[in-house]
């Protein structure tokens, strides 16, 4: 198709072709096209088929108000062709039509529409219930739009930004831009959201003019230039607003531009003030076959020509109820469209200048007339018009039927911001009767249609926003209020909804294929409130988010006399205001994880890294799932574990010890300078939450460790439980500042002695001792602990020196057969010693007593008000609790049961916490939480393992620990 390429309002570059695929066809659009305009320019009129009746549907609006133009783009279903920019090489295909939209084999559904009344799914298929399962697959296949493959991956990159602003303006039309400029001049930082790809709104493309004779588009262009030059205005184009929330929060997303149409950006802005200048959309006129391809809104026809250079048709009939329609008719005539007639729903009240313009062009204007029926199947061929009294009728040939009853303000953001809407008789709009604090509105949304009045009302809203932000604007506001009073006020609007004598095929909602007759049926059933009718007849619940039926439904229901309300009442608007990809909400996939300082070394040593919470850790260092070599190295020689993920904290100050006594169950007043104290933390229920080691590094200065999983919440926990105490202490999270090496095994001392001058003999540095010394001049904090059950040194090393110290020890240990060991080996080693791991041997309900750590609890420090103390007292001898026991298998050659297996005896009586094959004992050992009566030594436990096929494994409660019960190996 040849484009009009001389218009000053064009937003395309006719010289830059863009080729794309449409089904099997290869088509060409131009730079600046949307998918919809490119298809239309190539003669495509039927874009898809409707949801229920498979009626042909075409281009009706251009801002995505209906599902008519949903297509598949590059494999993504349900993409709105109207708002998606065309990119070179795009693959576009139609939906819900077979084989093509023009020739759809399910088109016969339309003839069966009588069989699908309102509430069809609820009423017809409800009884008998046994029919429902038969009907579901058929309905699923025939209804619905778009197909989502199960392995679908949303294309595009998505990010999110959170700009700061004093004022957020929604809608960059003349009013919005005026508001932004006035506010920016007063000193506010302004963010503006505009859903179209350029600012200017309803005046941006119009050649008409107010009395000053300067065309709207020219005056608007000056405003756009001023906005773009302002350093205080940040304008987001292609950015529809999704929602408005409390405390001034506005959410939006920004669509991608060619060549990356699916790159989207989620935006959240919280501003002190909000200005809503979203303008109007057109309110459809209802008549029979009002959605035939070729029927479109006045703005759609006008913008096709003025913005994209496409003539919307050869011969047009207009049926409108507002001056905008008359303006469009005159302008399209000038661009070469033959206008057969303009029917205006109004008898009077038209702009005399526009009436003159029509008569100069010899365009017949039929006052009080309306279209009643569109003819033609896949596109309009004729339109029947009727006078108000129904007596006069005429049928005219046309291939374009421009129809709209009136305008509808876009009030969604305002109502989400908390404005209450009331029906305004003069404009026929639902308008806010009160605005929440710091929320303002202006422009065409309020019914003003005059350029100067729209601009002045916008500036006034901008000044109000400045006033909200504490900038005195009294004089300027007075002046502007005065000016606005002298400008034309809101224009009178029609409340006309439906043409006389039509209804059976008059579609009130395109998305859900709902006709006026369906609404009548709902009212016959007794529904009298639009909010309920909307649901029963499925009106406005589709992807257009109520854009098409939004205000027609309440007006129609009110006019029917069925409603008990004195005035029409709008239906509720909810977020998202526009359909939004979930992927856009999700934003960038920020999987945050941490690596220890030794990560690379561990990998180089063959470590199989695993994600555990936020950390990557080495599970094992060989193919062997049981880590035999690693275990034997620790038991017979020496091994090293990277334990850097332990939580590490410094707490200091005169009240530090009080804090420790509050959160730890033990007595912290007696931590000697040279000893490490093992203790635990409980919650208010006496349930175990954490264990670790506390050392005193100097007076009123302590260093303690927590389990890996608690590192992130320990500061919060401690501050919470001391929040009523005005205590003087500081706490520092050193988890990432220090790394930890656990050097363990009978040869551990020999290895350590090779790298330090400090005396690390058993006499100088005994079990549970704490020392600070240098290793190759690096200050190291060392503790003699025994988690794995051998002589071991836990070395806390500044993180940046971890690689150095680890390598030094590796080298020093070479002669002793040193090797790194991982979490799997550690798990078996500590299991042989029955040392608990929080989360393995405990769950939410497990108390300190249950796991046998009651001895850590110091019961005589009531002054400390220890967290959990009351519950520990109350549960100490509580019957009916699960207790931690050790077990061996009745058959030593049996495999160890899986962690978490149930212990059964007609009912579940406990579960296996952890069980591994012990290379030391040459049989499986394990720990289990079992009901108290089962916890006596020698009790039989029957273990049900997933997939055992009812074949229970037998185990027996045994003495613990399994390995080195006297703990001699720790003390050497």
């Amino acid at each position, binding site marked *: 198709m040849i484009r009009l390429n001389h218009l000053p309002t064009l937003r395309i570059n006719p010289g830059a072709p863009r080729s794309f695929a449409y089904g099997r066809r290869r088509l060409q659009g131009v730079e600046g096209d949307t998918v919809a305009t490119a298809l239309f320019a190539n003669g495509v009129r039927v874009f898809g088929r409707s949801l229920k009746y498979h009626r042909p549907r075409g281009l009706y609006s251009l801002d995505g108000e209906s599902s008519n133009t949903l297509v598949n783009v590059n494999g993504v279903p349900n993409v709105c062709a109207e708002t998606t920019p065309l990119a070179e090489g795009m693959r576009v295909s139609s939906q819900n039509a077979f084989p093509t939209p023009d020739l759809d084999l399910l088109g016969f559904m339309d003839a069966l529409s009588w069989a699908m009344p309102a509430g069809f799914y609820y009423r017809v298929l409800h009884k008998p219930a046994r029919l429902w399962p038969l009907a579901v697959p058929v309905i699923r296949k025939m209804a619905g739009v778009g197909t989502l493959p199960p392995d679908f991956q949303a294309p595009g990159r998505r990010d999110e930004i959170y700009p700061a602003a004093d004022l957020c303006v929604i809608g960059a039309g003349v009013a919005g831009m005026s508001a932004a400029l006035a506010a920016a001049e007063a000193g506010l930082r302004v963010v503006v959201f505009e859903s179209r790809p350029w600012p200017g709104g309803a005046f941006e493309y119009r050649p008409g003019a107010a009395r000053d004779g300067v065309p709207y588009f020219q005056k608007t262009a000056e405003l756009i230039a001023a906005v773009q030059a302002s350093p205080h205005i940040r304008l987001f184009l292609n950015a529809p607003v999704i929602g408005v*929330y*409390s*405390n001034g*929060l506005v959410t939006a997303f920004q669509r991608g531009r060619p060549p990356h149409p699916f790159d989207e950006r989620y935006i959240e802005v*919280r501003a002190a003030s909000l200005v809503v200048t979203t303008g109007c959309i057109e309110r459809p006129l209802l008549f029979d076959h009002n959605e035939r391809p070729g029927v479109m809104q006045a703005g759609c026809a006008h913008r096709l020509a003025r913005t994209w250079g496409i003539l919307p048709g050869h011969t047009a009939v207009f049926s409108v109820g507002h001056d905008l329609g008359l303006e469009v008719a005159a302008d399209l005539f000038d661009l070469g469209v033959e206008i057969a007639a303009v029917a205006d729903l109004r008898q009077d009240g038209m702009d005399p200048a526009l009436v003159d313009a029509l008569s100069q062009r010899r365009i017949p204007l039929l006052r009080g007339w309306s279209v009643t029926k569109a003819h033609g199947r896949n596109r309009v061929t004729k339109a029947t018009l009727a006078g108000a009294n129904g007596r006069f009728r005429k049928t005219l040939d046309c291939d374009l039927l421009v129809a709209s009853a009136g305008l509808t303000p876009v009030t969604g953001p305002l109502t989400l911001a908390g404005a209450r809407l009331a029906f305004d008789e003069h404009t026929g709009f639902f308008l806010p009767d009160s605005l929440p604090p710091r929320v303002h509105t202006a422009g065409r949304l309020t019914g003003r249609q005059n350029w100067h009045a729209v601009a002045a009302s916008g500036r006034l809203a901008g000044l109000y926003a400045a006033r909200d932000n504490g900038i005195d604007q009294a004089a300027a506001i007075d002046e502007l209020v005065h000016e606005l009073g002298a400008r034309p006020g809101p224009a009178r609007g029609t409340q006309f909804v439906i043409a006389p004598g039509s209804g059976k095929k008059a579609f009130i909602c395109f998305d859900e294929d709902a006709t006026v007759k369906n609404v009548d049926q709902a009212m016959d059933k007794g529904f009298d409130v639009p909010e309920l009718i909307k649901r029963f007849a499925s009106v406005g619940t589709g992807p257009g988010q109520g854009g098409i039926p939004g205000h027609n439904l309440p007006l129609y229901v009110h006019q029917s006399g069925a409603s008990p309300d004195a005035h029409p009442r709008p239906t509720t608007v909810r977020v998202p205001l526009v359909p939004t990809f979930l992927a856009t909400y999700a934003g960038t996939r920020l999987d945050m994880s941490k690596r220890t300082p030794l990560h690379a070394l561990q990998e180089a040593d063959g470590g199989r890294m695993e994600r555990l919470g936020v950390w990557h850790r080495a599970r094992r260092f060989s193919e062997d799932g049981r880590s035999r070599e690693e275990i034997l190295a620790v038991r017979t020689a020496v091994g090293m574990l990277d334990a850097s993920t332990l939580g590490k904290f410094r707490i200091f100050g005169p009240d530090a010890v009080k804090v420790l006594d509050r959160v730890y169950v033990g007595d912290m007043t007696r931590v000697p300078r040279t000893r490490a104290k093992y203790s635990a933390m409980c919650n*208010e*229920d006496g349930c175990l939450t954490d264990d670790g080691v506390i050392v005193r590094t100097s007076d009123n200065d302590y260093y303690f460790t927590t389990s890996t999983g608690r590192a992130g919440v320990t*500061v*919060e926990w401690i*501050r*919470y439980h001391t*929040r*009523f105490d005005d205590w003087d202490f500081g706490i520092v999270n050193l988890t990432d500042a220090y790394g930890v090496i656990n050097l363990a095994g009978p040869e551990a001392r020999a290895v350590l002695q090779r790298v330090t001058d400090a005396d690390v003999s058993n006499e100088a540095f005994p079990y549970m001792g704490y020392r600070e010394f240098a290793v190759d001049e690096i200050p190291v904090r060392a503790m003699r602990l025994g988690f794995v059950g051998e002589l071991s040194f836990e070395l806390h090393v500044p993180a940046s020196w971890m690689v150095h110290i680890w390598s030094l020890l590796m080298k020093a240990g070479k002669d002793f057969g040193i090797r790194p060991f991982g979490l799997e080996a550690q798990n078996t080693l500590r299991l042989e010693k029955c040392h608990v791991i929080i989360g393995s041997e405990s769950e939410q309900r497990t108390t300190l007593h249950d796991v046998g750590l009651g001895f850590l609890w110091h019961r005589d420090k*009531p002054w400390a*008000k220890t967290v959990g*103390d*009351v*519950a520990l*007292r*109350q549960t100490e001898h509580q019957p009916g609790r699960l207790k931690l026991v050790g077990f061996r298998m009745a058959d030593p050659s049996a495999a160890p049961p899986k962690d978490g297996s149930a212990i059964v005896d007609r009912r579940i009586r406990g579960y296996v916490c952890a069980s591994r094959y012990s290379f030391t004992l040459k049989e499986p050992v394990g720990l289990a939480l079992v009901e108290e009566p089962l916890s006596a030594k020698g009790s039989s436990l029957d273990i049900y393992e997933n997939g055992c096929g009812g074949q229970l494994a037998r185990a027996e409660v045994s003495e613990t620990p399994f390995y080195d019960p006297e703990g001699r190996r720790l003390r050497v």
Partner: protein
Amino acid sequence: MAFTITCPICGPRSGYEFRYGGEDKGPRPDPADMTPESWCDYAHMTDSRPGVQKEWWYHRAGCGIWFTIYRDTTTNLEVSPDSPETVA
């Protein structure tokens, strides 16, 4: 959590930055005369009455302090401590 919370140190910030710490129930009671039932009440039970309540928040993604605000649970908006509604 679209609403903002006013941290005494950082000022009004997005609710996402905070962790909820429950209704304000005052300092922990004297443990001496606690029965399991009364302790459970203190540890777990809340009033959950609609209206303005005093509650604890932790500025997790900020300065790291615990503080109280007044919030109207029916509007999910913070209420000034000077407002007449905060007088329980």
